[in-house]
């Protein structure tokens, strides 16, 4: 089975962002990066499915050449090869442009299964996976918490608002991974050593035409200062009063 896991290098989740002087971009000073949270789950699932069904896992990313650190981490966990489409314009790509570029590369590489995170923890689009599937004309299940593959087909359980939905689909398929799908492993020393010898291809990314123009980036308006209404159960009447008469929501 040919499996591709798409990962993205994003700012760490503890970032307190600052807006750059142009008012339209993120101040890059001091920003640290990581593999997007759900992409770790995509990589883990790719390795698990390979362990079960055999085959090969390719980790694919569009990003700066520095993303080789995140790709090597995935190789250390058990992925077989890495592909970086080098694009230094983090701000320039909208989800459609990303999906188109990934679709092109995936068609070239060939795959039975493509795994992505349910959402990238930078722009919070939650769009690239289902867009990619629509462009390829493949089956796609999003927000997946359980995945079983058989001969040319599979079933996936997805976390939906009302409960859990089970889908049957034919391969090739695109799956976006939700947190409950698995518990990502850590790379061992042996894996880290092995990863150094695994193939990592870097090639320039085809230019993107974005349909998104950033007018302004801003910190959300600060909330009005609140107050402590009191201590212990004795403060409950004061809270009720505030909710009824000030906030008017009770």
């Amino acid at each position, binding site marked *: 089975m040919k499996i591709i896991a798409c990962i993205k290098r994003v700012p760490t989740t503890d970032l307190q962002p600052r807006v750059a002087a142009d008012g339209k971009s993120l101040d890059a000073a001091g920003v640290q990066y990581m593999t997007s949270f759900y992409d770790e789950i995509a990589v883990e699932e790719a390795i698990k499915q390979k362990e079960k069904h055999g085959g090969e896992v390719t980790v694919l990313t569009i990003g700066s050449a520095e993303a080789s650190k995140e790709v090597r981490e995935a190789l250390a966990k058990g992925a077989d090869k890495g592909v970086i489409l080098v694009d230094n314009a983090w701000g320039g790509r909208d989800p459609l442009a990303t999906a188109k570029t990934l679709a092109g590369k995936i068609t070239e590489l060939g795959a039975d299964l493509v795994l992505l995170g349910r959402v990238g923890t930078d722009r919070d689009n939650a769009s690239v996976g289902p867009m990619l599937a*629509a462009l390829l004309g493949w089956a796609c299940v999003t927000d997946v918490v359980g995945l079983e593959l058989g001969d040319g087909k599979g079933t996936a359980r997805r976390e939906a608002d009302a409960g859990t939905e089970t889908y049957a689909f034919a391969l090739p398929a695109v799956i976006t991974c939700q947190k409950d799908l698995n518990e990502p492993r850590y790379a061992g020393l042996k894996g880290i050593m092995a990863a150094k010898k695994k193939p990592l291809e870097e090639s320039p990314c085809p230019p993107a035409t974005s349909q998104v123009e950033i007018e302004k980036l801003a910190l959300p308006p600060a909330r009005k200062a609140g107050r402590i209404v009191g201590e212990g159960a004795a403060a409950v009447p004061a809270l009720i009063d505030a909710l009824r008469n000030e906030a008017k929501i009770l």
Partner: protein
Amino acid sequence: MSTIVVFVEHAAGAPRRGSQEALGAASALGATVVAVLCGNGADAAAAQCGKFGAARAVVLDATAWSPDSAAIGVAALVRAEKASAFLASATSSGRDVAPRVAALLDCTLFSDCTALRKDGEKLVVTRPWLAGKLDATLRSSAPVLCATLRRNMFAVKETGGTAAVSKGPALGPGKAVLEKIEARAGGKLDVAEAPVVVSGGRGLKEAPNFALLEDLASAFGNAAVGASRAVVDAGWRPHSEQVGQTGKTVSPQLYIAVGISGAIQHLAGMKTSKVIVAINKDPEAPIFKLADYGIVGDAFEIVPALAQAVRKIKAQG
């Protein structure tokens, strides 16, 4: 502004609340609103779309739910209507279908928007980045502006109109097909949808103590129970209840955080709530910096008293 097509989800013969909000958002932009509904049994809900601002409602019949075939049918309708925008609620189905519709139209998608504004004939959207740590104001050069709307951010408009209902072409067979739904226990409200959310953290000490929060939620009647990641990771609560950067983003009328310290990843998921209440025994807990009202003290003492007080008020009407 010409025509806006709105993807309307339905349950029990009525448009879902998030879809009502999306219809409201579309009609607030002064457009001709066309609702599109998929699946058998959508006719009753279609007829009701007029009440929320739709001029017309188109039903695409299907024997089984498939997001890929739904997207093909909806995209074809958007094209046929020559719509200038396509909107859906950012529900689990909306987020599943809308990106596909957008891609089929060769358009990008603005997901989970918190505001939409008209600027001449163009739309300007606001949506959070970095889990709400930044607000991005964006414009699009896409031929059709495609967006999903965060729930509880757009008003439902009861216009009292009627929509002309018609049938579109039935949906084709899908590549991924829904086989089974396991509903959440007891028909509970989803945290992302509930007008009141009562969330608990590690301060509740152990899983059975969440009964206190369940009781407070039932006192409100329209509340859902949420959780911090610490208690989800500990296995006390399901991930579907987790609020935060790697859980759900919620914007209820009232959010009550009990025994939650207020880590940045948690705040990202709830700070657009209308009113925030924090109950924590540590007066220095970061959650108090964000809360409108706080009570310092022991949750085990405060929560039952609060539940009792809320019941009393609800009983008075």
